[in-house]
């Protein structure tokens, strides 16, 4: 920013600070705000004024702009207006009957309605001129209103103003639906109600009833919302006059709104509606189909199925936890995953048969899924043979990263990274198990084979009909009696040792795993971080010189962080060991100990925390999910270096492509 442009600002600050600051200091302060930190002039002015004590506590933390009435947009949050009182009245407002003064204010450019919410003893006689400071504006129905709230104030002025008698509002315009532009502030339309629905919504701290639906006239249809529906009763099919409407536009979609000051009255006009197609609804009894006949496009279909797997999950819908049931259903022709979204009073038992009525289908990842929302599941008194053949012929083939408990029988193509033969004792019986690690290009998973399939390291295999069990949130693949294993040629690109990238949301939904990589920001450092003592025998952390296994021991110093990493999809606990902590904080264990003996352990930890917090990192390790949430035991950690310019250019071209 060049010097000339800055002169007025510089002068203003100097004047206000009244020589509390010399010009050189002021210039360098301004330069810092504007050129080093790139904040705008207003923020710089306020920052400097506050720093040097020229903004007192009673002044609010915001800036104001002097406005002429015809430039008001109705969205001002903090404006100053100088005007002449055209009319004013002291009255009781609202439920508690507080006294306000409202009226009309004018200047050379127009007039506007105003309300002073805490007038005290102030008088606003017509004809006098006042400065309305720290006002905010609102629009009602196309009319702009100026409000002087608790932060605002009114000051009498000596000057006189000749008022231009044009109200700062948008004149009402009579419109046909097809000619709405979407920016109308005060439109009147006459239209037939094609659809209407009364709903309760929670808005600004209270429940309120709104009416929404579709209006139509000769020129088209438009969705509408009536925000204050008290006393309004709309009959579908009837014609009404709607006055005081405002429109909003979201790209191509115009929406008509009726605010508090809008009115609706029955009209005798006869209106032929054109261009109306009813909103899709699930209605008529569904078409009866077998699973193999599904196309994925069905809107309402009935199926007779047997439940092969079913799981109740809690998801959050509209702020409230809600149970949904998902699983796998089968009939004589095949199997299909299902989700039931309305589970009130519904019990779905594995192995039982049901008639699913009014389901709709979606295709997701090339797989057909059936969904039931307003449909019903009725117990069916007949046995459905989901032949093994059918079920086995269509086991879901997945990638390693998609493997999770509850998806039933699965097939996977993967390479064997490691495999070892072990004896385990299960319910008093010794069994041989071949266990190790499998991987494909998407990730790694532990497996256990309960019979000898001849699995060797570096084999590439097609494993069919395996099942999944989780341990501490980590899914593991089990190869049981019904499993088939065959060698394949595939050469997998096994993810490098830095692990499979996953999001926290994905981990919360699908469980933990081995060798997972998380990228996010360190947002918290938890208790148990910093200098600790470990048992020399077992490496457990010791408290008060006691190891819970080895008793009294001479602890060995160690450094670790218990951090919280947030990747914007969720948060995960991370236990970071000494080496990575040293690297992250730029301080060694011995330096930390020296610091701690000088300033205390909490000061040493604060030093480390100040280096670690808000850092973007990539952490790899095994992820478990237990009662306390997901956590990663970090095996390697690095600070993320983003090429912000390249990423910004990517975003730029994406936005531009979508704008044109």
């Amino acid at each position, binding site marked *: 920013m060049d010097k000339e442009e800055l002169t007025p600002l510089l002068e203003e600050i100097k004047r206000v600070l009244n020589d509390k600051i010399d010009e050189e200091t002021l210039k360098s302060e301004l330069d*810092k705000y504007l050129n080093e*930190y*790139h*904040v*705008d002039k207003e*923020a*710089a002015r*306020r920052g400097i004024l*506050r*720093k040097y004590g020229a903004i007192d*506590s009673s002044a*609010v933390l915001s800036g104001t702009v002097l406005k002429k009435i015809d430039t008001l947009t109705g969205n*001002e*949050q*903090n404006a100053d207006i100088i005007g002449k009182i055209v009319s004013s009245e002291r009255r009781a407002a609202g439920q508690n009957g507080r006294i306000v003064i409202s009226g009309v204010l004018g200047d050379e450019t127009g007039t506007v309605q105003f309300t002073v919410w805490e007038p005290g003893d102030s008088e606003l006689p017509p004809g006098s001129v006042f400065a309305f400071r720290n006002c905010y504006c609102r629009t009602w129905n196309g009319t702009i209103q100026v*409000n002087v*709230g*608790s*932060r605002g104030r009114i000051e009498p002025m000596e000057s006189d103003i000749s008022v231009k008698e044009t109200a700062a509002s948008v004149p009402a315009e009579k419109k046909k639906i097809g000619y709405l532009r979407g920016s109308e502030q005060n439109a009147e339309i006459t239209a037939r109600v094609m659809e209407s629905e009364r709903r309760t*919504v929670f808005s*600004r*701290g209270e429940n309120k009833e709104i009416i929404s639906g579709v209006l139509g006239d000769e020129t088209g249809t438009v969705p509408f919302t009536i925000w204050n529906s008290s006393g309004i009763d709309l009959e579908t099919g009837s014609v009404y006059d709607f006055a005081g409407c405002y429109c*909003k536009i*979201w*790209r191509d979609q115009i*929406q008509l*709104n009726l605010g508090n000051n809008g009115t609706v009255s029955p009209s005798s006009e006869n209106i032929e509606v054109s261009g109306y197609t009813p*909103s899709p609804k699930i209605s008529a009894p569904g078409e009866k189909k077998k699973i193999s006949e599904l196309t994925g496009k069905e809107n309402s279909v009935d199926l007779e199925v047997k439940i092969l797997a079913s799981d*109740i999950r*809690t998801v959050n819908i*509209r*702020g409230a936890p809600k149970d949904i049931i998902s699983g796998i259903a089968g009939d004589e022709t095949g199997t299909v995953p299902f989700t039931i979204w309305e589970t009130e009073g519904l019990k779905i038992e594995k192995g039982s048969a049901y008639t699913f009525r009014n389901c709709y289908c*979606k295709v997701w990842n090339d797989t057909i899924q059936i969904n039931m*929302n307003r449909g019903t599941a009725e117990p069916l008194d007949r046995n459905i043979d989901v032949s093994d053949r059918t079920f086995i012929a269509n086991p879901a083939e997945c990638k390693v990263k998609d493997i999770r408990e509850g998806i039933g029988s699965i097939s996977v193509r993967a390479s064997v990274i490691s495999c070892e033969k072990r004896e385990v004792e299960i319910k008093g019986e010794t069994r041989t198990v071949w266990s190790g690690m499998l991987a494909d290009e998407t990730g790694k998973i532990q497996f256990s084979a309960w019979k000898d399939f001849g699995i060797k390291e570096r084999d590439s295999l097609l494993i069919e009909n395996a099942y999944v069990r989780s341990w501490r949130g980590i899914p593991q693949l089990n190869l049981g009696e019904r499993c088939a294993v065959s060698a394949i040629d595939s050469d997998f690109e096994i993810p490098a040792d830095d692990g499979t990238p996953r999001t926290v949301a994905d981990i919360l939904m699908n469980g933990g795993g081995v060798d997972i990589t998380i990228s996010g920001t360190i*947002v918290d450092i*938890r*208790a148990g971080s910093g200098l600790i003592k470990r048992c020399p025998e077992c490496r457990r952390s010791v408290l008060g010189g006691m190891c*819970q296994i080895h008793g009294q021991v001479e602890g060995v110093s160690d450094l670790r962080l*218990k951090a*919280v990493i947030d990747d*914007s999809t*969720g*948060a995960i*606990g991370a236990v970071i060991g000494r080496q990575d902590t040293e690297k992250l904080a730029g301080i060694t264990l011995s330096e930390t100990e020296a610091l701690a003996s000088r300033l205390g352990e909490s000061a040493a930890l604060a030093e480390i925390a100040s280096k670690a*917090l*808000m850092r*973007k990192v990539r952490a790899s390790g095994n992820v*478990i999910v*237990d*009662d*306390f*949430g997901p*956590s990663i*035991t970090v095996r390697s950690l690095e600070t993320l270096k983003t090429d*912000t*310019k390249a*990423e*910004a250019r990517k*975003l*730029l071209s994406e936005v531009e492509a979508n704008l044109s």
Partner: protein
Amino acid sequence: MSDNPFRSGGDYMPQETRGPARPKSRETAWRVFSSELNATKLEIRAAEEKMPSYVVTPLGAKINRILIAGTLTEKEDRGTEEEHMWICRIEDTSGHFFVNAGRFQPEASAALSSMTVPCYAAAVGKVRMYTNTDGSTGISVRPERIIEIDESTYLDWVLDTAVSTWDRLRNMKRACSSPDTDAEALIRAGVNPAEAEGIIYAIDNDDPPDSGVYLRSIQNALRRLLPGEDVDFGFPDSAGSEPSGPPAGSQESSAEKEDIILRLLEELDSGGRGAPRDELERRAESMGISSIDLEEISNSLMDKGLVYEPNLRYLKRI
């Protein structure tokens, strides 16, 4: 024995539901520009104690916790040396955040004491909606953690936030363009459940958002990230509309005021008869709660069944 860092603190709590036990997740820290946060009008108040409250932005971000960054341009301590009450502004490329830290934010409060204005700062904290006496609302951030950062860490945040703003804008557009969209449909289309839920809540309860505001925020962010390059979505450079500041005396949301009054009631109830009204009024006044506010708060507490009036001059906790 679990080493899980969440063992300390109540970020995750085992959930009592049927089916496999799933821990409730710690609230995600949303990356949101100040322009979007300050335009927020919707609040979802916790129905029960220990349940989180949220605000829902016009683009459907359902926020309890937020990650913000920017230039700390102003800080003012309205508390005492022993008990700070910091009121700050942090400017990002779209406007500014209001940040308040007092005795319930000890780490952040201590950190703010040693920060010099101006500097780049990042904060993680909870959002609070406050209502001014005139009925207008505003949002402030109560930081759990705040620290000074370098410019490149700030620019990383600007980029991340621009990307996530763009994602929300697109998802919102998709949701608005089909009238019968519900959360399920969005989830099926690949939007994550938390975001889908927020979008539907915003559509149901708020006016459709003005996409121009958010395109301009993205434009300004990209201009900061790519100085000298041609970034023009057709919006003037100036920052977004000024949000209103937290007015003196009403920084506490009504939930916090209720907490204060409940604590006072316990403190003043020496003889088990309840707290004398006049004393309560005096103490409340000294904590910035007017007698009219007190009336409103005690009514609300009575409605909730938390307090009652043993007689006209006393108020007592149940």
